[in-house]
């Protein structure tokens, strides 16, 4: 699988370029972060629209049970070696995610509690079982609290498989090889013999000290061969997340129409035979698999942000499903990219947080000169998703704070104008018109401030909707027509 991916990439770049790219921790962390973000966003969009945002939180915890059970089955049942990257763990995780959702629905259907409480009942139970099993049977596997909670995307690049493409021949050093080194070895020394090499009785013989078989990469570093082998060190996490991203993308692409229908109107989906229940569980299984894949990189807690926040952000920015999918993936990937730099103090290239630390160190706190901003990478990526959400919330054209405030101000002003016109209309040509419509007392009738009324009248006058005659505010023909039109619209709406 890895080889296939690499061969594909080698069509576009040379092995050296690929080696350099993958040797760069920043590059690898961003790539993995982006893949976690995209695979999360594709599924998260549907979770959000199904009002199941928190289910991803529950699942990302309970997959631990699947992992542990698969692990125990592997070690004690199948007598295999414990391997944290075994496909069995993925299967176990998928099943445990499905189990979580099934158990939640079972509890909910009992009618005893509401849906949120059912989720709250199901997932700590499964998580607790997982923890008990870990402490009882799997103490020595690489599953400490840190990994479970936050993950470590920064070291993913170091956990790599070696692939060689040219000059890969193993080098065999024999005693007559020109690079063979000889040394002396005592043949009757401790521990097999009674002597130490310093004793005069010690007998030595000539041996080859570096004979053996060497992989090309080691042979090259030791200088046994002159031509460098072409090597690519391929971080394992790229394969895992790459496959998961691909599977999620295919799932959403192929079943876009079915997912859309089942999410919007599960009743019709069932009536048309599209098996919404099956799709639901397939979605949950993929959420579980994605959560497991992201475990090492970002941990069980932070992965929830990648499911939910970019999707929620995209929801504010568009009102079409496919655009929401594209946007949420893009926003997630962007957060991964900018988040890595944020962890190193660089906020979008605008501000360097080191400066803040220097300031704090000097004037506020005593940081002891420790002014380098260097924080947990996945957390910084999550902070960036939050930042983009905030940004969307403020500037979104339809739901944003700014546009909403402006719209509301405009609406309020228009409403007050209509109110004033209505008041004039109702009292014009009545016997108490002199009292109701006098310019200097009108504000009291409407219970407005005098200044506000003056401004409103001035605005209506400038648009030639009212005029002032003998200190009375009177409607113009134009104002009368506008009011009629407004009333008409109000009735038909």
């Amino acid at each position: 699988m890895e080889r296939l991916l690499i061969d594909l990439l080698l069509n576009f770049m040379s092995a050296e370029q690929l080696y350099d790219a993958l040797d760069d921790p920043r590059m690898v962390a961003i790539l993995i972060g982006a893949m976690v973000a995209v695979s999360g966003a594709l599924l998260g969009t549907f979770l959000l629209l199904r009002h199941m945002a928190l289910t991803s939180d529950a699942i990302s915890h309970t997959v631990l049970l699947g992992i542990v059970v698969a692990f125990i089955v592997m070690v004690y049942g199948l007598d295999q070696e414990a391997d944290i990257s075994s496909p069995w763990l993925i299967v176990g995780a998928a099943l445990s995610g499905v189990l979580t959702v099934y158990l939640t629905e079972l509890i909910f259907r009992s009618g005893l509690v509401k849906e949120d409480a059912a989720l709250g009942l199901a997932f700590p139970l499964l998580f607790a079982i997982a923890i008990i099993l870990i402490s009882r049977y799997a103490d020595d596997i690489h599953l400490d609290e840190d990994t479970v909670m936050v993950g470590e995307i920064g070291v993913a690049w170091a956990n790599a498989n070696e692939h060689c493409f040219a000059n890969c021949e193993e080098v065999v050093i024999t005693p007559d090889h020109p690079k063979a080194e000889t040394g002396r070895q005592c043949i009757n020394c401790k521990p097999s013999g009674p002597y130490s090499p310093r004793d005069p009785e010690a007998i030595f013989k000539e041996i080859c000290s570096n004979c053996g078989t060497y992989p090309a990469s080691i042979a090259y570093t030791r200088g046994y061969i002159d031509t460098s082998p072409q090597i690519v060190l391929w971080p394992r996490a790229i394969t895992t997340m790459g496959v998961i991203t691909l599977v999620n993308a295919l799932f959403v692409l192929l079943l876009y129409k079915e997912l859309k229908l089942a999410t919007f109107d599960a009743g019709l989906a069932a009536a048309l035979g599209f098996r919404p229940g099956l799709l639901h569980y397939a979605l949950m299984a993929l959420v579980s698999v994605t959560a497991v894949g992201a475990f090492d990189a970002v941990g069980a807690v932070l992965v929830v942000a990648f499911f939910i926040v970019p999707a929620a952000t995209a929801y504010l920015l568009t009102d079409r499903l496919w655009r929401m999918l594209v946007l949420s993936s893009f926003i997630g990937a962007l957060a991964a990219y900018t988040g890595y730099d944020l962890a190193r103090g660089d906020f979008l290239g605008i501000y360097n947080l080191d400066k803040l630390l220097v300031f704090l160190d000097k004037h506020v706190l005593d940081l002891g000169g420790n002014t380098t901003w260097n924080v947990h990478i996945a957390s910084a990526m999550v902070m960036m998703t939050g930042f983009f959400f905030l940004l969307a919330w403020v500037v979104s054209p339809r739901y944003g704070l700014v546009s909403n405030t402006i719209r509301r101000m405009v609406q309020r002003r228009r409403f007050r104008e209509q109110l004033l016109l209505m008041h004039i209309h109702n009292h014009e040509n009545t016997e108490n018109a002199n009292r109701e419509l006098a310019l200097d007392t009108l504000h009291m009738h409407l219970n407005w401030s005098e200044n506000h009324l003056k401004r409103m009248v001035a605005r209506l006058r400038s648009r030639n909707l009212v005029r002032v005659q003998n200190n009375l505010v009177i409607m113009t023909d134009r104002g009368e027509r506008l009011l009629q039109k407004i009333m008409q619209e109000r009735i038909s709406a």
Partner: protein
Amino acid sequence: MNDTRHAIEVNDLTVAYHSKPVLWDVDIDVPEGVLMAIVGPNGAGKSTLIKAILGLIPKASGDVKIYGKSYTQARHLVGYVPQRGSVDWDFPTSVLDVVMMGLYYQLGWVRRPGRREREMAMEALEHVGIADLAHRQISQLSGGQQQRTFLARALVQDAQIYFMDEPFAAVDAITEKAIVALLQELRSRQKTVIVVHHDLQTVEEYFDWVTLLNVEVTASGATKEVFTEDNLRRTYGGRINTLTRIAG
């Protein structure tokens, strides 16, 4: 088989929630080409009856035949208009998209709607009088417009039998008249339409067939024959004071 063809036959249908029956031994035959109302008090199981016929909820007993076949074999003959409140109208999609969902069955798995489907959906929207709203986001629709969207979605299915769950709920008088006209047009094309209905005042005016339901079926048949004061009293129990006027 009798002289009239039965579009729907429901035999001994019982649906239970835990061990509490929601529908109790329901037996009804609906002839082809009628416009039938299902009426009954709240909690009578009206929506449940539709959902059980469509196989959306499990049956405790009994079976349902659509033109003599099981529902799974007759899916293509059936159009469904769920309650308006059953979906999330903030869903990010357009009116046209929702209408095209009615064509998903014909498309089958994986295949996407294309130009032909868009045109069919536009036609249906014109039919229900909201073609100008085709590209609106559905959250911007009024209640009546939402109902018309759902009707257009059922129309594109070009089914033989339509099930509609309270299509008149919270729509204004103009929309109600438009929906009734549409239903009558469907009947004139020999379609069978089953409507969960709440307003007893309009049953005789709108529907030629009626099923009175309160967990059990109290009466089912031609409106003229079964929509009687006596049957209404049996369906609604004592709370009939306001009803006598209508049925009398």
